[in-house]
């Protein structure tokens, strides 16, 4: 083949485009499933405590390389579309790009924070949590936030204690909260007595959080040190194809409770993203036959007994990767 004798210019004229394709033997794209009920709820971090026993502002405590407040918010984001942080007046908090509202009445305990939270969210209910719960599990948040039914509030009872800072509240409770604050009755238990309250018992809680990681909170330096030492490895699943579409997320980071294996990580993923159970994961968290994992994009495995390390990335993909 020889060059043309005269130098031409690349043609730029365009041919007419082909017509739209016929909808031959076709079907409509399946629309997304019904919205997750948990998404009708806001997540609220009550971060305005004084941190007296800790001796250091809890919101700023480093945990896993980020401030504790950021860690809690990161977990809330996996469940709730709306997130609000409540702080004390003048309190310095990490900037997480979220709305921060301030307590109207100082040092009134959780009810004080709840009062301002109930007036600040768009959602009809809110899930309240403190900023010192480093191991909060999305599966537990999802359980609690969808437990209201006909009630005004739903609160977990763990080891015989009610946990008002892992509870869900309807915004219609605002008058009741204000009344209690006006009367100086600051214990959340008073609210549970007066409102239509659903108690979520331990047996039910265990289905969402088998080891109770969500109930770990850090009151003093000893708690902090213990939690740091006992922190379970965190593994990030990178989701591709159908798993990503189902989870509506490209990455999910989970706490892997003992033993630190691929199997435990998958079980945590199944609790974290329940919509994967069935199409992708078996009911017990095992990998479905049509899927395979890659460890950090290198080795491929289906071995659930393989150990995983903190910070490891597991890529979850169809076994029919490729054409």
């Amino acid at each position, binding site marked *: *083949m*020889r*060059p*043309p004798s005269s*130098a*031409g*210019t*690349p*043609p*730029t*004229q*365009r*041919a007419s*485009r*082909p*017509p*739209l*394709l016929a*909808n*031959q*033997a*076709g*079907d*409509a*794209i399946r629309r997304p499933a019904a919205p997750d009920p948990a998404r009708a709820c806001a997540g609220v971090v009550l971060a305005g405590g004084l941190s007296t026993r800790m001796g250091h502002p809890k919101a700023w405590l480093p945990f896993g390389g980020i401030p504790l407040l950021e860690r809690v918010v990161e977990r809330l984001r996996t469940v709730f579309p709306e997130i609000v942080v409540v702080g004390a007046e003048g309190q310095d908090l990490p900037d997480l790009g979220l709305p921060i509202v301030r307590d109207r009445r100082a040092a009134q305990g959780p009810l004080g924070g709840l009062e301002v939270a109930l007036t600040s969210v768009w959602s009809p209910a809110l899930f309240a949590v403190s900023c010192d719960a480093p191991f909060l599990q999305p599966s537990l948040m999802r359980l609690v936030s969808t437990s209201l039914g006909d009630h005004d509030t739903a609160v977990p009872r763990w080891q015989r204690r009610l946990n008002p800072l892992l509870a869900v509240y309807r915004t219609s409770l605002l008058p009741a909260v204000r009344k209690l604050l006006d009367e100086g009755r600051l214990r959340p238990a008073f609210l549970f007595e007066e409102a239509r309250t659903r108690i979520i018992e331990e047996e039910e809680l265990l289905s969402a959080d088998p080891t109770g990681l969500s109930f770990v909170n850090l009151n003093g330096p000893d708690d902090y040190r213990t939690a740091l030492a006992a922190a379970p490895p965190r593994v990030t699943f*990178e989701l*591709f*194809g*159908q798993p*990503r*579409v189902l989870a509506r997320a*490209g990455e999910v980071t989970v706490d892997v409770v003992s033993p630190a294996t691929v199997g435990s990580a998958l079980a945590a993923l199944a609790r974290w993203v329940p919509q994967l159970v069935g*199409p*992708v994961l078996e009911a017990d968290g095992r990998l*479905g*036959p*049509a*899927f*395979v994992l*890659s460890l*950090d*994009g*290198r*080795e*491929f*495995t*289906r*071995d659930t007994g393989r150990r995983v390390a903190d910070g490891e990335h597991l*890529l979850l*993909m*169809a*076994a*029919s*990767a*490729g*054409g």
Partner: protein
Amino acid sequence: MTMALSTQFERHVRRPRQVEAGRGVPGGYWGRLLHVDLTSRSWDLQPLDGELLRTTVGGAGLGAALLLRWCPAGSDPLSPANPLILVTSPLLGTPLTTTSKYTVVTRSPLTGCITDSLSSSFFALALKGVGADALVVTGRAERPTWLEVRAGEVRFHDAAELWGLSAAETERSLRDQLGHRCRVAAIGPAGERLVRFATISNDRRHAGRGGTGAVMGSKNLKAIVAHPGPPPGVADPDALVAIAARFRERSLGPATAKYRTLGTTANVGLFNRLAALPSYNFRRSTFEGADGLSGESLAAERRVKRLSCAGCTVGCEHVFRSKFTGKAGRLEYETLYALGPLVGVADPDAVLACAQICDRYGLDTISAGGTVAWALEAEERGLFEAAGWPALKARFGEGERLAGLLEAIGRREGIGDLLAEGSLRAARAVGGGSEAFAIQVKGMELPGYEPRSLKTMAVGFAVGSRGACHNRSGAYEADFSPGVDRLKAERGQGALAAESEDRSAIMDSLIVCKFLRHCFEDLYEEGAEMLRAVTGWDVTAEELATVAERVSNLKKAFNEREGWRREDDTLPERILTEALPTGVAAGSTLIREDLDRMIEGYYEARGWTREGKITRDTWERLRLERAY
């Protein structure tokens, strides 16, 4: 639920006829081929004996055997002597899902090797209904012609008014004229102009690789119209319907969910993460714009519907609408790769527009993208001007320019006339060492699998009988499996590549869609079960495995006859000399010694000589002489 679905299917499916006893032809076949000679405008039916059918089954297998018989040695691929062979299969026309496929077999004008390109849907069904197992077209018509074929009749028509139309326009025009029961396979302007990677198109599908469209164009044949008739009967309709019900259910399960959810577009994001997504003419294996081109993003922002081929329960075709032009078109991974990362284009609308240009002209998107990527790099290096060619005036990432280049190729205008020859011939014409970065094997441009990070695929590409092809060797499956280190080159990977080729060969001969491959518990056992029910033969898994091996060897035998040399089984110099710079495979290389070791493993697994020639023992064991 499962039982109910199965029962429902068996109750409502159209039951195949039982083949008449004493007919002398196995179920699923007509036992003859239709030969049409365009030079003399004549046709005849010729018998296909049962032994040939049983030893090659159909599709790619029967096609390879027929090519050996019908293509005189040394024929120029674009000469009248090179036959264009359209082959159906015994499973076609039965209730088995994904079997509405046919194969186009010919000597490729791109590679000089055998090419067997599959296409799907209604035309395949119509072709089976014309009363022959294969259509062999020889000669060259004096002027543009279209063929009308029905059982017992072939007509030759003047195609002057169709010349210049796209395949889709041709199809629409002929079906408007003849009625919508007929089906059409046609070439677009690229085929007419003998672009060496032109396609044959039907029902919005393409026999895509190897330039089958150019062979059709060289014969002045614009279109083939098939009027459907009933397919031949089968041996055991009850058994067949039960098998069909079982596979239908599996085809609706998790093994094919990927294809229903996102189709192969799902590969973009994943391959990028695995550093297996070639970009910038294989200089990198990741692409910064991969997120925007990923199936997940496209589905969320641009998808409008999902389609299926005729008789398919998987439904892998995802149609996307351009936000820019509002036009819709289908996209799959290879097109996204070749018109996106490979040429540095990150804009999904630009890729969609370019894919539509390829559809309109009838261009293989992989070879088109691969050839343009080579040209963009040659332009960067100033090689066009140095060799006296006009400057390309395009750079990586310029979607608008890419569209112009594709149209120039489709019309063979300006520099497009050179690029229409494919990257290897263009590189030889331009020189300046540019053959080193013409990313092809035997002249066929690589699909979107980076060989340096997928070493089993690397050997699969190097030894491919039609050049670098992910459909004739699914060796990437080994790379994505536990137990294989995809970054290491071991001799044993040669055997894995041979195994993968054989699996592809049998799926392409039966013919079932490869997207069904994970629905088989055992491909050979269940493939034999299908074939028994259709044909009545007592075929076993072992026999079918031998057929698979025979088909792979027949293709090789054709290439050997046409002058294949050991050095043809290799990879481009870039792949063998440059390390990957980015992603999880950064630093990975594939040196020639490693590739040769894997190739030796492949030859050994095949029972060939160390130089890669078929041995006399293998020849006799597989009874390859039956093909002549």
